[in-house]
């Protein structure tokens, strides 16, 4: 089990393959030769012109590539945030939506939909911005509500997350029932139907994911120490309260941006960290890079399946992640002799 370098290399190779497949395969068939030619042409290495170049070029550079990039970022964000919450709460059932980000984002999106808010700052849809804000605000309320004196106990945070999450979900349902015309749009958003934002989406999302994962990675060893419980972590020199707030903030930032652009994609943040833990071991300094690579690969491949299985109809990617991931995870779980968490 303890072969971190080959496993890391394998993950890089898998990610490259996933990206290549994600770009190459779609409902419109583009000959491989054309794809290579167009990319080399774009990089000004060769001059490539064939018939229909512009049509192919648009599909390749403006639709598929940003879509793959968006999926890679979303997968990396959800897996990293999930691993962080699992470590922070020392709970294998923790997922990125634990502190109410998903239900808050859902509420934000629904408010924007039912109130028919329209404006496009930064070229983003209002729904996306409202969802992002809703997620961040809800997580903030959860953390504030969970404070007991100068500390924020993780169990209180967990319970507050569930309670406030349920409240937001109820409010969302109420809004939807009052404005049934917005129902379909709200569902579409939740299933990730706002993926077509192109490169501007990727540009907006990238800094959040980068800052979030950097903050978490810098504290990877502290997360290891955290596995001993808060009291021992403090006795080993960790500023426990600061670490908790920092990690929740970083993970929330990543999750909120993932949810706002990609909708509610289940499973990735819960199971991908567990699968990778089987290969990376418990050390977060190995696990977190694994999560970035593995989460990205898994979602790019799932999206590939979602786009092509019933083409030209697209399936919600969350269906694919659960249908393929669960059996694989159960298989690994059965094969494993030692508990991973």
């Amino acid at each position: 089990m303890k072969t971190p370098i080959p496993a890391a290399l394998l993950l890089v190779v898998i990610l490259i393959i996933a990206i290549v497949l994600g770009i190459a395969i779609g409902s419109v068939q583009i000959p491989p030769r054309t794809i290579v030619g167009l990319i080399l042409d774009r990089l000004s290495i060769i001059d490539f012109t064939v018939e229909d170049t512009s049509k192919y070029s648009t599909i390749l550079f403006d639709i598929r590539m940003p879509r793959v990039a968006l999926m890679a970022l979303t997968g990396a964000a959800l897996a990293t945030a999930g691993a962080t919450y699992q470590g922070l709460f020392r709970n294998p059932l923790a997922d990125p939506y634990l502190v109410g980000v998903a239900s808050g984002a859902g509420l934000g999106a629904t408010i924007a939909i039912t109130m028919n808010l329209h404006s496009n700052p930064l070229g983003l849809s209002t729904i996306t911005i409202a969802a992002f804000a809703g997620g961040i605000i809800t997580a903030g309320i959860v953390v504030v509500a969970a404070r007991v004196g100068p500390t924020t106990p993780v169990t209180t945070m967990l319970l507050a997350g569930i309670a406030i999450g349920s409240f937001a979900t109820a409010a969302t349902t109420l809004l939807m029932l009052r404005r049934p015309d917005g129902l379909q749009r709200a569902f579409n958003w939740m299933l990730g139907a706002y993926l077509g934002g192109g490169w501007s989406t990727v540009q907006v999302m990238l800094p959040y994911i980068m800052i979030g994962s950097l903050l978490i990675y810098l504290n990877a060893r502290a997360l290891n120490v955290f596995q001993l419980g808060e009291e021992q972590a403090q006795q080993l020199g960790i500023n426990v309260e600061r670490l908790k707030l920092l990690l929740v903030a970083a993970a929330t930032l990543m999750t909120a941006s993932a949810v706002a652009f990609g909708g509610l994609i289940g499973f990735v943040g819960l199971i991908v960290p567990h699968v990778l833990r089987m290969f990376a071991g418990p050390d977060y300094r190995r696990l977190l890079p694994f999560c970035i690579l593995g989460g990205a690969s898994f979602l790019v491949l799932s999206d590939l399946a979602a786009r092509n299985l019933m083409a030209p109809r697209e399936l919600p990617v969350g269906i694919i992640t659960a249908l393929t991931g669960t059996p694989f995870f159960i298989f690994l779980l059965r094969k494993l002799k030692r508990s991973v968490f």
Partner: protein
Amino acid sequence: MRTLTISDLSVSYDKQAVIKNLSLTLSRAEIVALLGPNGAGKSTLIRAITGVVPVSQGTVCLDQIDLLSLSALERARRIAVVPQHALLPDNFTVYEIVLLGRTPYLPLWKKETGNDHATVTQALQHTNLENLKDRFVGDLSGGERQRVLIARSLAQEPDVLLLDEPTAHLDLKHQASILRLIKSLATTKNIAILLTMHNINQAAKCADSVALIANGKIQSYGSPADVYTPENLSKAYDTPVEVITHSENGLPFVTIHDTL
């Protein structure tokens, strides 16, 4: 030479005073045992010294440095703790757990250096764990786990070592080996050691001085021979006890007076 000075320390939980104006000093290479009934405040004292529970009054100084005003990181370089019910994740190896003892010297992203690994190896040698270093802690016995925690504390290179019930739940053989280890650490490492114990007879063998605590106060302090009087102990534990002098080593031996 004095190292740890606790002066006028008070700790309250929900306005209920658990430790009241307690003062105690510890020198290097000295072992002091905290004795007393359940709920007397022994564990609270240890948690207060390490900054885990807030102190309402008083100071804890190491030489001239006020420990309670230090950051957790600075404090952990000076004081190490072996907690009573320590949570240890099963899937960490012995080596990985002991390496976590280097945390106070490794802020944020800094990677462990050769020096850190050398310190860990030394700590494993001291605690006789070299052969177990690649074992998962989930597979260890109670005595081995306790040695892992002591090794992790040594990796912190502390001036003061605090142990909360280090021999609880161990059989006689492992109790003896842990106490022997603690005693040798005090002298070879020149560390001041403060430990809580329920077994007063073993405390008499291991400690240089004992502090009898009841109701958050030190009722009696001194050598076991001075502190272990039937009056002192009967009052502190609220139960009649008998004190016999051991025929060979001359140490007091305490037993319950009543026939059960």
